[in-house]
């Protein structure tokens, strides 16, 4: 297959389906300056977060990796980094890491520039110039096998496992048949279904890795002496008919289709080209989607039974429901309705085709409901305590 769509070609050969100027605060202290600049310069996206200081070890590395990965995401055309000047995340190192993609990166710190007012004014000036350059870039035809799509579910109810997840799985199989990549995550939400995914890993080592990350997570729950129930399944999941994490997991895994699993990757790690990959990530919607975006996903397809407005900072999030009542009640937030699978008027194949068509339209530039509403959620998954 060598069908094409129109996308933005980056210096390193990556393909973007959006052309954002991303404003990255290296630390919570520069969030406000970044937000003000975003408000002043249309077309820019800021990613305020809670981290970047008082962090050590793997946690500090994770913050760096997620910020760098988000900057490297192919939907980002240029990056402006704003630091405070005394935090643990080094803005120069971050800029250098993102520059490896060949995209323009600028950075400065608020302490050197002389406070918030001067930083906002200086940053807005820089952002305006960078946006002007980005707007000159034209789209070119690119092959479908460049596309990487994350699959995620959230606000699940019984319809998720019965209709929207298997339908998304059919669309995931279509993308893999074109040579593209699918990434599935949510380690928490394969508990009780991991044996079915492990059977599909292409080597025994990858299968072992999958069991390892599930065991590691379950051991942590054990160590805390906590009962997952009440947290997961959530109260909404339970109201929707899901009784246990095992039931939820068995419904969750069908969203990645039937392809063999080519590898298990770390949170925010680069998603390889071609085939299906598992990212070790939490079930939490925003943390999981942010990890996929940092791994280079172009789009996340997100199924929901109960309904959720979730979007993401640098990637479109396509919302799919198999619950007719949810589609009707929350049409503002929903992109695709596959509820006809359950009333018997539509087939799994038709529902899969509808999602595949939506992926193609969104890749070609159609805005998702989350984009229309300005949803730019971003959150970094944490490992350890703050200092």
């Amino acid at each position, binding site marked *: 297959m060598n069908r094409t769509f129109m996308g933005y070609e980056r210096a390193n050969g990556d393909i973007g389906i959006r052309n954002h100027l991303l404003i990255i605060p290296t630390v919570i202290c520069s969030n406000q300056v970044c937000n003000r600049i975003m408000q002043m310069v249309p077309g820019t996206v800021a990613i305020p977060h809670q981290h970047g200081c008082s962090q050590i070890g793997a946690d500090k590395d994770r913050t760096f990796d997620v910020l760098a990965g988000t900057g490297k995401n192919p939907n980002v055309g240029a990056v402006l980094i704003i630091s405070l000047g005394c935090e643990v995340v080094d803005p120069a190192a971050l800029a250098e890491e993102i520059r490896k993609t060949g995209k323009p990166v600028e950075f400065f710190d608020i302490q050197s520039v002389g406070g918030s007012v001067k930083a906002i004014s200086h940053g807005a000036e820089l952002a305006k110039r960078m946006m002007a350059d980005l707007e000159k870039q034209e789209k070119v035809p690119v092959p479908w096998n460049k596309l990487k799509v994350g699959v995620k579910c959230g606000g699940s109810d*019984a319809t998720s496992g019965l209709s929207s997840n298997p339908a998304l799985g059919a669309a995931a199989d279509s993308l893999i048949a074109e040579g593209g990549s699918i990434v599935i995550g949510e380690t928490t939400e394969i508990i*009780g279904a991991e044996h079915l995914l492990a059977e599909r890993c292409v080597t025994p080592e990858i299968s072992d890795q999958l069991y390892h990350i599930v065991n590691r997570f379950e051991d942590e729950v054990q160590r805390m*002496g906590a009962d*997952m*129930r009440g947290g997961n399944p959530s109260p909404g999941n339970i109201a929707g008919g899901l009784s246990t994490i095992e039931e939820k997991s068995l419904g969750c895994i069908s969203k990645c289709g039937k392809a063999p699993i080519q590898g298990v990757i770390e949170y925010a790690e680069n998603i390889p080209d071609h085939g299906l990959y598992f990212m070790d990530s939490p079930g939490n919607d925003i943390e999981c989607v942010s990890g996929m975006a940092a791994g280079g996903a172009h789009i996340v397809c997100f199924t929901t039974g109960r309904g959720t407005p979730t979007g993401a900072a640098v990637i479109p999030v396509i919302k799919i429901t198999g619950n007719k009542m949810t589609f009707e009640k929350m049409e503002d937030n929903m992109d695709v309705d596959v509820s006809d699978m359950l*009333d018997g008027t539509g087939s*799994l194949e038709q529902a899969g085709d509808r999602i595949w068509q939506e992926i193609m339209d969104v890749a070609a530039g159609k805005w998702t409901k989350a984009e229309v509403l300005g949803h730019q959620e971003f959150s970094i998954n944490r490992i350890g305590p703050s200092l």
Partner: protein
Amino acid sequence: MEHRIESGADALYMDERDHVATALRDMTAGETIQYRNSEGLRGVTLVDPIPFGHKVAIVAVEEGMDVRKYGEVIGRAVKSIVVGQHVHVHNIEGIRGRGDLGTKEAAAQ
């Protein structure tokens, strides 16, 4: 685990090993509803009201037995369940992610 959805039933039955079917509409206690297995449409009279998306027992399950949906184990019965009963958090519980039970071994027993 194969997803088959066929129309013309009130509740969805996923696999021949399953103990439960999922309600495709709000259903009331006392009504006889239809689900489809390999032999065709089967009837079950409901003991409890079953909300849309919730599960109804289509075979009896003894206390302590595994409960199956999608042909896979979704938890364990904490009390005996009769045909037509609502199957949910009041009569089944998850076995996994149970730090409150002390150890994985204790949870598995």
